[in-house]
C-alpha cells in the first residue's frame, strides 16, 4: 500500500516509520482501578508490555482477569468508574496518558483501532455500513470528499470479501462474521498501525472463526498491521499469534513467543491453561481442570495472586509478589520458581 493512494496523507506524531520488530507501543507500569461500592477493583495491576511492529500478540487469561480493561486502557478508553491510576502508554514517541482528550480522539480510529467481542451490537443499527465508514474517514480526514470516502469504503469492503454494493445495507442485514469484517474495515479505514481485537471470534462459529483468523493474518501482512488479539481461547492464540502474553488477576504472568510458550511453559498458571486445552492427540486422558476459582480482584490474594491455586506453591509465594522478569531470551515470567529472594529457602543453599 503506497502512501497517498487509498489513504491520503498520514498524520504522524513525529517519529520516523518503524521497521518490523521495533517497539510500536509500550505499556509501562500501567494500573487501572474501578471504584465500586465494595472498594477499588485492581483490574490491571502494574503491567508492563512492549508491542512490536508487525506482530500478532495474543493476550490470554481467564475471563475477568483484566484483558478487556487493558485493551481499553491502550486507547485510553477507560470510563467511570474506572481510572488509569499509574503508568505510561508510549506510542509513536508520546505518552498517551499526557495527551489532551482532543489529541487522543484524533489518534483513536486513525492510528489505534479496536474491534469488539460482539459484532451484532458493535454497529449503529440505524446507520448504513457506508455511513459508518465515511463518517470515520471524514472525521479524521476532513478534506476528503464524501464521494472519495465512499469509494474508499467500497474498496475496503471489497477487500474484506464482501460485495461492494452491500455498503448501502444496514447492519442487521449481515451475519456475525460479515459484521466482524466490517469492524475490521472500520479499523483499516485510516490504516491504523495497531488494532486491538477483543475476543473478536468468541461470538462466531468455528468455521467463520477460522476464516476470520486467516483474514487477520493476511491483513497484517498486506496492511502492515500490528494486532493485539485478546482471547480466553488459547487455541486461537496457538493458531495466529507470534507472541503470547498470559495475564492473571490483572498482572502479567508470562510472556513468550508462541513456540516457547507451548513447548516450555514456565508459570504454573500457564501450564495449567495449556493442560486445560482439549487436545485430539491426548484422547483418553481426562481434561485437566484447574483447581480453585478465579481470584476476586477486590481482594487480590497476597504475594503471587496465583498462590492459592498453584500446585507448586512455596511459603514465599503468599508473602511476596514475584517480579515480571526476563527468564531466558525473550521469555518473561513472574514466578518465584525462577527467582531468588532473601527469604526464599533453598535457593541460596542450592
Amino acid at each position, binding site marked *: 500500500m503506497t502512501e497517498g493512494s487509498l489513504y491520503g496523507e498520514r498524520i504522524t506524531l513525529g517519529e520516523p516509520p518503524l521497521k518490523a520488530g521495533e517497539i510500536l507501543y509500550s505499556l509501562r507500569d500501567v494500573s487501572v482501578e474501578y471504584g465500586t461500592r465494595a472498594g477499588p477493583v485492581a483490574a490491571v495491576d502494574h503491567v508492563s508490555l512492549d508491542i512490536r511492529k508487525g506482530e500478532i500478540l495474543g493476550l490470554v487469561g481467564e475471563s475477568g482477569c483484566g484483558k478487556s480493561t487493558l485493551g481499553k486502557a491502550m486507547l485510553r478508553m477507560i470510563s467511570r468508574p474506572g481510572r488509569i491510576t499509574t503508568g505510561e502508554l508510549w506510542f509513536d514517541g508520546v505518552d498517551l496518558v499526557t495527551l489532551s482528550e482532543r489529541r487522543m480522539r484524533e489518534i483513536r480510529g486513525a492510528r489505534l483501532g479496536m474491534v469488539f467481542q460482539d459484532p451484532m451490537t458493535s454497529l449503529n443499527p440505524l446507520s448504513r455500513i457506508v455511513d459508518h465508514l465515511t463518517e470515520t474517514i471524514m472525521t479524521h480526514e476532513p478534506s476528503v470528499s464524501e464521494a472519495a470516502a465512499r469509494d474508499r469504503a467500497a474498496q475496503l469492503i471489497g477487500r474484506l470479501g464482501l460485495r461492494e454494493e452491500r455498503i448501502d445495507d444496514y447492519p*442487521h442485514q449481515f451475519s456475525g462474521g460479515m459484521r466482524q469484517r466490517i469492524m475490521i474495515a472500520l479499523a483499516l479505514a485510516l490504516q491504523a498501525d495497531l488494532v486491538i481485537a477483543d475476543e473478536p471470534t468468541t461470538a462466531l462459529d468455528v468455521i467463520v472463526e477460522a476464516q476470520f483468523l486467516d483474514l487477520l493474518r493476511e491483513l497484517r501482512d498486506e496492511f502492515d498491521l500490528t494486532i493485539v488479539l485478546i482471547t480466553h481461547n488459547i487455541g486461537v492464540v496457538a493458531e495466529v499469534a507470534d507472541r503470547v502474553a498470559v495475564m492473571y488477576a490483572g498482572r502479567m504472568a508470562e510472556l513468550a513467543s508462541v513456540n516457547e510458550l507451548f513447548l516450555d511453559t514456565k508459570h504454573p498458571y500457564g501450564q495449567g491453561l495449556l493442560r486445560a486445552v482439549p487436545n485430539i492427540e491426548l484422547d483418553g486422558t481426562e481434561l485437566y481442570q484447574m483447581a480453585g476459582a478465579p481470584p476476586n480482584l477486590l481482594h487480590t490474594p497476597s504475594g503471587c495472586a496465583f498462590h492459592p491455586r498453584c500446585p507448586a506453591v512455596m511459603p514465599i509465594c503468599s508473602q511476596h509478589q514475584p517480579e515480571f522478569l526476563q527468564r531466558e531470551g525473550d521469555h518473561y515470567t513472574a514466578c518465584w520458581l525462577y527467582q531468588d529472594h532473601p527469604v526464599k529457602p533453598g535457593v541460596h543453599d542450592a
Partner: protein
Amino acid sequence: MHPLLIVFLVFGIPAGFALGWVFLRGSESLRRYILTRIALTLPMVLILISVVFFVLRVMPGDVVSSTLGPKASEETRQNIMEALGLDDPLIVQYFRFLGDVVTLDLGDSFIGARRPIVDELGERLPATLELIIPAAIIALGSGLLFGTYAAIRRKKPVDYSLRLYSVIIYSMPIFWLGLLLRLVFSVWLDWTPIAGRIDVVTNTTLERTTNLLFVDSILSGNWAALKSVLRHMILPAATLGLVLSGVFVRLTRINVIETLQEDYVLAARARGIRERIVTYSYALKNAMIPVVTVIGLQVAILLAGAVLTETVFNWPGMGRYLIERISARDFQAVQSTVAVFALFVALISLAVDVIYSVLDPRVKY
C-alpha cells in the same frame, strides 16, 4: 374557500408530499404496509364515532330539556324533536350521521342559530390546532433536550433537578399549572394577557382566511396581530406542553442512558468519532425509537389536556366547544367534533407508524 378546507390543505399538502415521498422511495413491503395502515384507519374512526353516537343517546337528558328547561310543553318538545330528526328510529339517525360524515357535510347544530357544524368547527378547529401544535413542540423539544442533558450529566445535580422537575410537572393538574402560570406571568408580572387568542382591538384589523391567527397575521403581514397572537399563545401552549414534557424527559433520559452504554457507542468512540456526534447521532437517534412510539400514545392525552387548557384560558377551541355542547345535549355538534378528533388521532398515529418505519431500518412490516 371554507376555512376548514384551507386548514386541511395547509397541513394535508406537506403531509401528503412526505407520505408520497416515503411511499415512492420505500420498498415494496413498506408500500404495502402503508396502504394497509391507511386502510385500517377507516374502521378505527368508524368504531370511535359509532361508540360516541350511541353513548350520547343513552345519556340522560336531551336538547329540549337542556335548553328550554322542564317547563317546555309536550307539543313544543315534539315539534323540536321532529325538526331535529330526533324522533326517527335510532338506526335511521345513525345512518344519517354516517352519511353526514362521509359527505363531509356535518349537518346543522341543534341550538342557537342552527349554524352548519362545519362553520362552527371552521372557527374552533384552527384555535385548537394553534394550541396543541406549539404545545407538542414545547413538550417534545424540552423533553428531548432536558432528557438528553440529564442523561449526559447522569447522577450530577442537573440530572437530579431535571428528574425532580419531570415528576412534579407530570403530576401537576393542568388546571392548577395554568392558573399558577397565569397568576405569575399575567397578574403579578403583567407580561402576558389573561385569556383569549388575540386583543379585541387588534382582532378587528386582522383579515381572516384560515382562522389560524398565526398564519393569517403572517399572510396579511399584520405584525401587530402576530405579536398579539404569540403573546396570547405562550401561556396556554406552555401549560399544556410542559405538563406533557414530563413523560418525554423521563423517557428520553432513560433511553439515552441505555443507548450510551451500547457497544456501538463504545465502538464509535474507539473510532475517534466526536462526542457530540456520538451523543446525538448514535445515542439520541436510537433512543428516539421508543420515544416516537409514545408520541402516538400521547396524542390522546394532548387532546384531553387541550380541553382543560382551553377552559382555563378561555381559549375558543374545540375542547371548550365540546364541553358547551355536551351540556346542551347538542348531539350533532358533539358527534361531529368527536369524529374530527378521531380522525386527527388516527392520522397522527398513522404518521407515527410511518415515521417509525422510516426511522428504524429493522422494522418488519
